[in-house]
């Protein structure tokens, strides 16, 4: 599972088109014109097969969306979006996902960097621990969080300790963020690790011979190079948080106007048989995800200049 996910992560980080100067080298020169004709003929099947296989997946997703759109009507959509609960859930979803994504990035950059650059004892163990949230069934993760916060240690309990200081977690918004973060961060770490793996450490070494400290070298040389990976990590973390639902349901509950995020809205609408409403909210989530992905993509390309 984690294998394919890191593959997904790399796919994310290499979505920008390759610069044009690389493709130029393939262009035929007049010297080998007959050869190029042969190549052109032999290229056609290649593109047909490649695009054919790709198209099946794209088509599947498009068809899913079309089916959803046909299932709901515009009025359903409008009804769903005018409910104050759903507006509140949308707000909470956007903010909690963003917080979870930013936090994940903050943790993922140092952790990914250490895992990628340094060989230290028990590194394999750390590597495995980071993957646990990815393989753990979501409901179990929520239950584990619940157990953690309510485990009595003597007569001390984390939830009560925080609650007495006016910061209750369980069944409140911090629980939502924590549930999203614990899964999203694992994916972000994977992505960042792959990113740092692909950055040549020699640039850092050069910077250090020129008088930089390790910290300066990291900030000035490595981080700017890891920009695209960071955007990808944030994107993945945000998208994971958006879809997260099992742990939130168990750990934060689904109180309307308080801890209900859109993914739990979908579940709740389904469980009372409001299929129309559930599909409308799902489409809303798709729309939100597209907007956020586009914003992040723009940020990524904006940083390139």
């Amino acid at each position, binding site marked *: 599972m984690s294998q394919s996910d890191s593959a997904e992560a790399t796919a994310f980080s290499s979505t920008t088109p390759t610069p044009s100067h690389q493709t130029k080298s393939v262009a035929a020169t007049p010297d080998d014109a007959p050869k190029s004709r042969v190549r052109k003929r032999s290229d056609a099947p290649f593109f047909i097969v490649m695009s054919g296989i790709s198209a099946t997946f794209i088509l599947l997703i498009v068809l899913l969306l079309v089916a959803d759109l046909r299932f709901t009507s515009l009025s359903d959509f409008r009804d769903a979006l005018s409910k*104050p609960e759903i507006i*509140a859930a949308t*707000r*909470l979803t956007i*903010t*909690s996902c*963003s*917080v979870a994504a*930013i*936090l994940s*990035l*903050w943790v993922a950059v140092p952790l990914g960097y250490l895992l990628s650059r340094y060989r230290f004892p028990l590194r394999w163990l750390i590597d495995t621990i980071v993957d646990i949230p990815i393989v753990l069934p979501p*409901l179990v993760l929520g*239950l584990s969080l*619940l*157990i953690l*916060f*309510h485990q009595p240690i003597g007569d001390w309990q984390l*939830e009560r300790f925080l609650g007495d200081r006016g910061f209750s977690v*369980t*069944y409140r*918004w911090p629980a939502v*963020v924590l549930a999203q973060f614990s899964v999203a961060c694992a994916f972000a770490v994977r992505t960042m690790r792959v990113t740092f793996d692909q950055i040549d450490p020699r640039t850092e070494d050069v910077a250090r011979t020129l008088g930089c400290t390790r910290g*300066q070298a990291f*900030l*000035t040389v490595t*981080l*700017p190079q890891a920009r695209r990976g960071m955007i990808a990590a944030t994107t993945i973390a945000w998208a994971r948080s958006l879809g997260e639902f099992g742990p939130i*349901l*168990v750990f934060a*509950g*689904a*109180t*309307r*106007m*308080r801890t209900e995020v859109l993914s*739990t809205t979908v*579940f*709740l609408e*389904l*469980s*009372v*048989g*409001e*299929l129309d409403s559930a599909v409308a909210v799902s489409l809303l989530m798709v729309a939100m995800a597209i907007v956020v992905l586009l914003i992040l993509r723009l940020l990524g390309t904006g940083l390139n200049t």
Partner: protein
Amino acid sequence: MNRTLIWIAASFFALIGLVYAMSRPGGSTVPRQPKLNADGSEASIMLFCAASNRAVMEAIKERYEDECGTRVDIQYGPSQTLLSSIEVAGQGDLFLPADDSYLAMAEEKGFVAETIPIAKMRAVVAVAKGNPKGIKSLADLKRDDVRLVLANPETAAIGKVTKDVLSAQSKWSDLEASTVAVRATVNEVVSDIAIGAADAGIVYDAVLHTFEDVDQVVIDDLKEASSTIALGVVKSTEQPTTALHFARYVTAQDRGLELYEQYGFGVEGGDQWAETPELSVFAGSMLRPAIEDTIREFEEREGVKVNRVYNGCGILVAQMKAGQKPDAYFACDLEFMNQVHDLFPEPVSVSNNELVILVQRGNPKNIRSLKDLSREGLRVGIGHEKQCAMGWITQNTFREGGVQQEIMPNVTVQTPTGDMLVNQLQTGSLDAAVAYLSNAAGAADFLDAIRIEGIECSTAIQPWAVAKESPYPQLASRLFERICSVESQDTFKSEGFSWQLEPAGR
């Protein structure tokens, strides 16, 4: 370098801003006139509610908050998940699972104190609108052109109920063999039919209410298949009175149940709603020491008033015949329950109490048996035959022992209650009295009790019953549950009663 730092700072401030936006309470539903706890904080209760009850629960919550001012926070989710949450977090005041099988589970684990029934769900066959496949019977479900989906008996109550009922008629295995799919929840089954992925499925009728393009077919074979929805009070709640207040609201026939009915659930019974219900209980005075403390605790926990009237059962019966209508009646003997059988159709025998001869401590008159009571010059007190069960049983016992003619001349006093006889013995105005063993329980320092041997009818059996016309049958039955609790049984025993009622498996 600077740019990187700017980005780090920017993400930090963005984080702060987002957290601030989240921590501000959204436009949450706040009751118009919030009720406050004693310490000035806003009163609120937490309900763990099965997602299937969400629509109706939201409506009830809104009405309750408007009417009573206590905020209700509701956690929705799958029943099993909610149960785990209660187990782990130990939070929450009330638990409303999709059906009572989960409450039974919670009771087994000892998480639930009271349970109050809400509605009944019947098993029906769900079909597409207009029943295009013409499904009318169980046989139709097995047809080759009917795609049948069922809920899993392991994970869904409807599956289990269906399996149990049909297995008893040996029709289950055939039906199971003809399914195209088994789904985990009842909702998945209905969704399949709504989307058109299946033609028929067995589901609860209440679930179909929100599905516009699904119809139901009632099948005779499934007549017995039904589940109850009930509301449980979580044992670890720190505010049972507030929780029970809301529980009473949800289960009141003119409040919560009204809405349940609107949302397609089959409801029956239920108490009338009252902010502070007043339950009237008539009880034979012999029972007072055995039940008084239990009733007081019940009042405190429930936040209700129980008006109890203790008196000789004959007097109580006369009052009822004169038109008084208590909600519940705890009689000293079956005879005095039978006399008002039309008001109390279903009595339950709870305890028994034997008749004994009470004498001064040390038995100075050396009384050994009933026969001795006929001795010249003895002053004997007994219960009044018409006014109380004790008197009536005493006369029966005398007759049975063949000593009625001899003893009656010695009887100087007949009282409506045994307590009075005990008092008179204490003051020395009587030498002996025929009363219940329980009357002597509090006076063991100055009285001795002599058993009456060999006469069967000298034992009184105390039945409890709830009035047919009581507006609070549920509340009364909860009080009875408390009376049947282990602690209460111990009280009965220490007061000289023997417990008779077998614990009923609910």
